[in-house]
């Protein structure tokens, strides 16, 4: 036991002395939360648009003024004629062009019908559809005002209630995702690299021939990263509650136990990688391709799983982060208790047990 403590101390000193690394490890959750919380939004606003006004009458000027006043659009370019539309798009100046027909006001008043063209740069399909929708909504509003307050017969009104997230904050989705990403990075990548390094430099041989139980050495390596992970989880949770104002509705103890469960699972993954990998670069490669990318892509935190082809959906079931993400999201946001997430928890426990047994077994084989 005393030996074990010595090793833990040694590993701690390693991590502590490397100021750069420690700094990045601790700064990572902070930057991620800030970026995800404040910089990344799926909401489209201040999009640069160009305007080609062929009629320049009162109605068209009014409508254009209304569009440029909205926070979604920023009129950056006045297009002189049709021939200039394409070049303006090609220079990447605008995302959408609004083409007003000639005699807009006249056709609106006399034939009661006028046609506006909205051209969107659909190389970004999501933004394109969103912009078209926003612009159409403004135009329809304008039209409604023209019609004044006529009462229509047989009207169906819709009452909308947003559950769980009435302000439609994006933060609700990514906080659990950021936790999963950070844990993957720390517990699998960093841990496996530091173990493989001992192999690469040959110091592992020394440990293997010494009277110390080798697994203890490995555990000693994991403990500092485990502790840094716990610090990071605390930071993330504090930031999300106090800065992003994402509440923790469920039981805090349950939440933390789930985090610990997941941490152990990824630590076991890290151990497994370190057993398989012969060099640090391979360890990095395996963790990047095998753990990190799947966490980003297949856990459901950046991209909806239900949209994926069925093959990928099946594969996503093998990704521990998917289950973790689901559990944390439900506990934090919906306030689910264990009886709601027991299935996912059981799956995680199962994965952890399998990974731990396999890696310990493999580790022993290597010793013989």
């Amino acid at each position, binding site marked *: 036991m005393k030996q074990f403590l010595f090793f833990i101390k040694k590993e701690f000193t390693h991590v502590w002395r490397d100021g750069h690394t420690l700094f990045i490890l601790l700064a990572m959750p902070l930057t991620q939360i800030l970026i995800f919380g404040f910089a990344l939004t799926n909401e489209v606003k201040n999009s640069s648009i160009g305007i080609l006004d062929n009629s320049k009458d009162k109605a068209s000027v009014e409508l254009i003024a209304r569009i440029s006043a909205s926070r979604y659009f920023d009129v950056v370019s006045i297009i002189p004629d049709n021939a200039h539309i394409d070049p303006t798009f090609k220079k990447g100046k605008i995302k959408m062009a609004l083409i007003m027909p000639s005699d807009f006001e006249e056709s609106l008043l006399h034939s009661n019908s006028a046609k506006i063209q909205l051209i969107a740069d659909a190389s970004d399909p999501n*933004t394109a559809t969103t912009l078209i929708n926003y612009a*159409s909504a403004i135009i329809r509003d304008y039209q409604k005002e023209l019609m004044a307050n006529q009462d229509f017969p047989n*009207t169906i009104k819709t009452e909308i209630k947003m559950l769980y997230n009435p302000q439609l904050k994006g933060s609700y989705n990514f906080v659990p995702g950021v936790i999963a990403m950070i844990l993957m990075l720390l517990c699998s990548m960093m841990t496996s*690299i530091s173990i493989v390094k001992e192999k690469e430099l040959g110091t592992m041989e020394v440990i293997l021939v010494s009277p110390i139980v080798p697994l203890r050495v490995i555990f000693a390596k994991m403990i500092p990263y485990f502790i840094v992970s716990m610090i990071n989880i605390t930071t993330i949770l504090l930031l999300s509650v106090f800065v992003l104002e994402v509440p923790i509705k469920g039981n805090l103890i349950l939440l933390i136990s789930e985090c610990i469960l997941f941490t152990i699972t990824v630590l076991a993954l890290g151990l497994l990688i370190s057993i398989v990998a012969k060099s640090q670069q391979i360890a990095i490669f395996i963790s990047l391709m095998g753990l990190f990318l799947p966490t980003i892509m297949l856990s459901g935190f950046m991209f909806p799983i239900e949209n994926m082809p069925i093959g990928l959906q099946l594969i996503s079931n093998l990704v521990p982060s998917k289950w973790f993400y689901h559990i944390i999201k439900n506990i934090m946001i919906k306030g689910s208790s264990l009886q709601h997430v027991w299935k996912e928890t059981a799956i995680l426990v199962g994965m952890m047990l399998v990974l731990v047994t396999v890696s310990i077994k493999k580790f022993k084989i290597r010793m013989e």
Partner: protein
Amino acid sequence: MRVLRILLEKEFRQIFRDPAILRMIFIMPTIQLLIFPLAADYEVKHVNLCVIDYDHSSYSNQFVNKIKASGYFSLVDYTDSHEIAMDYVENDKVDLILQIPNSFEKQLVREDKTTISLEINAINGAKAIIGSSYLNYITADFNDEIRQEWNLWPRFNPMPIIQIEPLYWYNPLLNYYFFMVPGILVILITMVGSLLTALNIVKEKEVGTIEQINVTPVKKYQFILGKLIPFWILGLIILSIGLTISWLVYGIVPLGHLSTIYIFSATFLIAVLGLGFFLSTIAKTQQQAMLFSFFLMMLFILLGGLYTSIESMPYWAQIITWFNPVSYFIEVMRMVVLKGSSLSDIKFHIFIVLIFAVFFNLVAIWNYKKRS
């Protein structure tokens, strides 16, 4: 010149002898290009709907059928109980609950007005907004039909109608792959440029072989060029593999000239190689190098406009993106591939990336001198 040639030969031999690196070079683009675009689909297609119909009238039936037929929604259950519906939402089986009041038809016909209610699981905000607007759209349509039925709607428009004609240029089918694939190519090239270069040089440090090179008469610039040129070539090879895959798998053929893409990529690679080289001068171990480049890469990618457009970011974040070489490359890639922009359209971008290239390399060389 001869020294440089020998160094290059050494580097290439090292790269091609290391199966791990080779695998990285070929598997990475393939996997990323094959899986990422398939996974990265934000489009809201399947909104799971649960209908609580208290009315069970022919109108409510018609309404529900219309929603079902729209293709946007999949009806999970048709029930009378709000509790059951909420249970579905709790378990993530349902995104949207539509409640039809018990006198829906009667009110609509006799009182000219009725109210339906929508309850939406808004944890995923985008899905909530889009789901509700789809439903609103269908409701309005249904409403029009009902009006047609009950009122002799005049054939001539009594009110001004503005028709909106939406046109989707450069990608009329709104194919999401066209958007993602060029961006992923950029990420690949950036990763090869910075991560692989940094790891490669730091490995020499860690193993100690860099000392051996430092004591030979090899000049500094020769050593640096000897390190950077192979990865520059590798980067361009990966780009070619990537372009081939996107052509074979996704049918994406750049509208612009291929040479435009290569000229820009070659310039961009010089910049990221310089960055990788710089990282290698500050990192002492491969672990550090990995972490540093990982951290930077994360910032570059998240703030590069790959997933979310830069214009919707807050101003401070937009300023950060000016210093992000990746954001220029992603923009250029999409411009050239999808819009067919030419060299003169992107001259500003090339200029900026050239500045990056000079800056990163100068800093790296300066930093390198100090330690040798």
